[in-house]
């Protein structure tokens, strides 16, 4: 155990985590050149394209220093705020962390929040100044920031370039020398922290764990403490480029477990497993059930594909434990699913995976957070869809989730950021100058406001410089209303949204305008109305179609024209009918584009 080192890399997106990880793996001969794919750790296509590591994994390296052989476990962490709970569990599996900062960019918000997580878990921090090869590198300035942030000595900061391979031996040495070996009692009852799970379609769920106390042998009976489920350890081992089956995984080490688990949901990240016949009395601290933060309906574009969509959702759930859903029906969209996501990125990922892996085209309805509603009769309801919102006269209080948002930016953009946050109902809580031209701003904001295009706009107004991190702080009473859309007097449930009263008017107006653009002229005039309860707050009209006839139809035109009309008719079949109005699918997405 004294030769094991468990560490992770804390870095902002694009600061070079994946590239550096590749260098470490090469240097320690964990991968040969032939096996080397660029950015090995990000092995889902989606992740590689996005340049973010969505699911965490771990990989083991052997490293020889001064004749002594060390086992280094690099634990990869997701890089997005949607997955911050998973990050916290990965951090809990380590004794140390490389703090990787791009020498041309400086410190970003996501880095700081993860760094604090690491410090709270008593991890040793090794500061690394990366990309020093860049002409735009500002080593001295960024070193000032690092010293300010973690209070280290300047000379503790390692200069590196993942791209050029600079600093790699120094980093490996620092890992051995500065990060302590795991502490733990090899003879105590087994306590293993589950910090990740990976879906394998042949072998079921692979549980990734770190042993805190005791050890586990192949064939052992184990018990997952939070779920109470028991399994047999059919296969255990350590994680190299390929899995390496072992007879035993020792105290302090990182490994995988396969025990015939088929569904990701059975495995809860943060749970502890122990031996059935000699159980530990306590779980490892910090376990939480992950809760979805954002909810939206997902419907097949083609109503006949509902069953296919269900199968796709079931398959997704096999490997994504944080995706929750239940069937839902909409008058406008037919049969579909109400889904809960960790955040907006998670929602986008699910949507993209449905499209890429399952070839499904789906309509996603307006995302909503979960509100708490107290009715006049004193009931407490959780409302995460407009359709669940009681009529206004039955509502006594609505509370909505609030977050503490940290934004780090160049100081020249502070004005624009303040304006944006205020528009988003944010309250400035704190403003700290990290250096003369870098500011950290803290706002208290409703989560609902961050769900809609906040991040994109923040990036735009700060020319990409601002970074964002947030955590949930609690619920506060808010004046929310349900805004409905009616077409020729018929409510279109899938277009309703829960919005703040002060924004309802503008929301309604913009939505009506957008719908007017997207709904084609039909046989009769269509009135588009936005309403709160019975009160109409905005209105637009789609005029009746004036003509639909082509000029010529002679011998050579007939079959071409028939095919054209047949094709148009097919396209129309994909439209949804509400009352007598036909709505194209883009109209349902329009809501997402309102800002």
């Amino acid at each position: 155990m004294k030769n094991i080192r468990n560490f992770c890399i804390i870095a902002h997106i694009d600061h070079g985590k994946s590239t550096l990880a590749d260098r470490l793996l090469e240097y320690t001969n964990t991968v040969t050149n032939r096996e080397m794919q660029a950015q090995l750790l990000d092995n889902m296509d989606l992740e590689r394209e996005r340049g973010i590591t969505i699911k965490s994994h771990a990989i083991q390296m052997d490293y020889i220093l001064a004749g002594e052989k060390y086992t280094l476990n690099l634990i990869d962490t997701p890089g997005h705020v949607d997955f911050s709970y998973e990050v916290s569990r990965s951090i809990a599996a380590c004794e140390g962390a490389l703090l990787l900062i791009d020498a041309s960019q400086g410190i970003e918000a996501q880095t700081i929040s993860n760094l604090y997580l690491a410090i709270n878990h008593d991890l040793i921090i090794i500061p690394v100044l990366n990309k020093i090869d860049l002409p735009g590198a500002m080593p001295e300035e960024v070193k000032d920031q690092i010293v300010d942030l973690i209070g280290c000595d300047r000379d503790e900061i390692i200069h590196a370039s993942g791209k050029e391979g600079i600093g790699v031996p120094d980093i490996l040495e620092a890992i051995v020398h500065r990060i302590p070996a795991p502490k733990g009692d090899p003879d105590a009852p087994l306590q293993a922290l589950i910090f990740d799970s990976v879906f394998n379609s042949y072998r079921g769920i692979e549980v990734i764990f770190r042993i805190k106390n005791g050890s586990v042998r192949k064939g052992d009976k184990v018990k997952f403490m939070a779920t109470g489920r028991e399994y047999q350890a059919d296969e255990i081992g350590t994680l190299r480029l390929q899995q390496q089956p072992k007879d035993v995984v020792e105290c302090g080490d990182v490994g995988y477990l396969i025990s015939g688990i088929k569904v990701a949901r059975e495995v809860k990240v943060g749970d502890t497993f122990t031996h059935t016949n000699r159980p530990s009395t306590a779980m490892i601290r910090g376990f939480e059930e992950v809760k979805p933060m954002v909810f939206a309906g997902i419907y097949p574009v083609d109503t006949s594909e509902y069953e296919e969509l269900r199968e796709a959702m079931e398959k997704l759930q096999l490997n994504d434990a944080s995706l929750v859903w239940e069937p839902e029906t909409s008058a406008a969209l037919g049969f579909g699913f109400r889904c809960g996501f960790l955040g907006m990125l998670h929602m986008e990922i699910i949507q993209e995976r449905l499209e890429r892996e399952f070839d499904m085209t789906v309509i996603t309805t307006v995302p909503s957070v979960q509100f708490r509603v107290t009715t006049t009769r004193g009931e407490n309801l959780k409302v995460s869809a407009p359709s669940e919102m009681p009529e206004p006269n039955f509502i006594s209080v609505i509370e909505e989730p609030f977050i503490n948002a940290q934004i780090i930016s160049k100081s020249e953009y502070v004005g624009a950021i303040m304006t944006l946050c205020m528009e988003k109902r944010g309250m400035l809580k704190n403003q700290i100058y990290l250096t003369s031209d870098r500011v950290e701003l803290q706002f208290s904001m409703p989560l609902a406001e961050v769900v809609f295009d906040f991040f994109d706009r923040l990036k735009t107004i700060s020319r990409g410089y601002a970074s964002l991190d947030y955590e949930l702080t609690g619920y506060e009473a808010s004046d929310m209303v349900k805004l409905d859309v009616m077409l020729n007097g018929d409510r279109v449930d899938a277009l309703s949204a829960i919005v703040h009263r002060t924004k309802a008017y503008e929301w309604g107006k913009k939505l009506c305008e957008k719908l007017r653009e997207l709904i084609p002229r039909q046989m009769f005039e269509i009135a588009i109305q936005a309403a709160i309860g019975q009160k109409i707050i905005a209105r637009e009209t789609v005029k009746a179609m004036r003509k639909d006839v082509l000029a010529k139809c002679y011998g050579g035109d007939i079959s071409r024209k028939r095919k054209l009309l047949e094709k148009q008719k097919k396209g129309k079949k994909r439209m949804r009918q509400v009352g007598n109005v036909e709505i194209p699918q883009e109209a349902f997405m329009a809501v997402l584009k309102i800002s």
Partner: protein
Amino acid sequence: MIRELKLQRDYLPSDDLHTIYFGGGTPSLLSEKELAFLMDAIKKQFHLKPDAEITLEANPDDLTEDTLATLADQGINRLSIGIQTFHDPHLRFMNRLHTASEAEESVRRAQDAGITNISVDLIYAIPAENDDILLSDIEKALALGVEHISAYCLTVEPKTAFGNWTKTGKMAPIEDEFAARQFEVLISKLQEGGFEQYEISNFARNQKYSRHNSAYWQRRPYLGVGPSAHSYNGASRQYNVSNNAKYLESIKNRVLPITVEILSMEDQVNEYLLTGLRTKWGCRLELLQELSGGSFLMKTGEEIFRLNEIGWLHSRDGLLLLTEKGKLFADQVASRLFLEQTKKG
């Protein structure tokens, strides 16, 4: 083409020819000899009815006295003249070679040459501030004493001059509102002038319908000869390759350069709806039932009811007919009644 005629002589179910149409391009450029050759060949391979309608498509500037005399000699008894408009700026706008006065003169010359069954093409919805130019176009056409008028809405297709102009903002897109209004003006003025709208784009006086075109709309067999010509024999459609060189090469080797398309039951119903509804003769319900194996009314009854309710379609004497209002929505009505393709083998 004479060679193709020989290859195709058995295509039609009957040898009797009721109509001939020289069209597609500028057949008025044919020399006397060429035209004579063609007519001879046709008469040799088929039986041309003595009262056959023989139409030739022509541009006004091609119709010289000499040409007209030749045409009359060869038995051409109907002319379809591409006049488009009598407004010179609009003619230039559409890149036409003739002027308004040349157009008028060509009609008079034809009449003098003894070809009195004349159709002129007009284009409406050419961008204009009001309907004045259209009204004057109609007046002039009526004053010429022609028997038949075909009127087409200006279309803006992508990859044409107009398409580019609208794309670059040089020309405003044609508003449906404007086009629809002009269409209505056209119908009412021509009716006042004694013309009957017997098909969406076709108007005739004294029942001088285009017998040839009517055949297209009434499911009669026809044979098209020449590059990209289409033919129909009741069960299938076929068309020649459009590339001239490929056409010539293939015919030289006595091979028909055709693509054949077998029409499914639904195709036949849909094509009948598409063409029949546009005419004053409408679609015969009995035939629709027959073509659909008895399923048409069951499948479309509800839609027919709906279309009737909004006043676009009515049925009388076993016919489905567009209403005056429905004429503006002919495509919409037809496609709403289309039968869905069951799987094609």
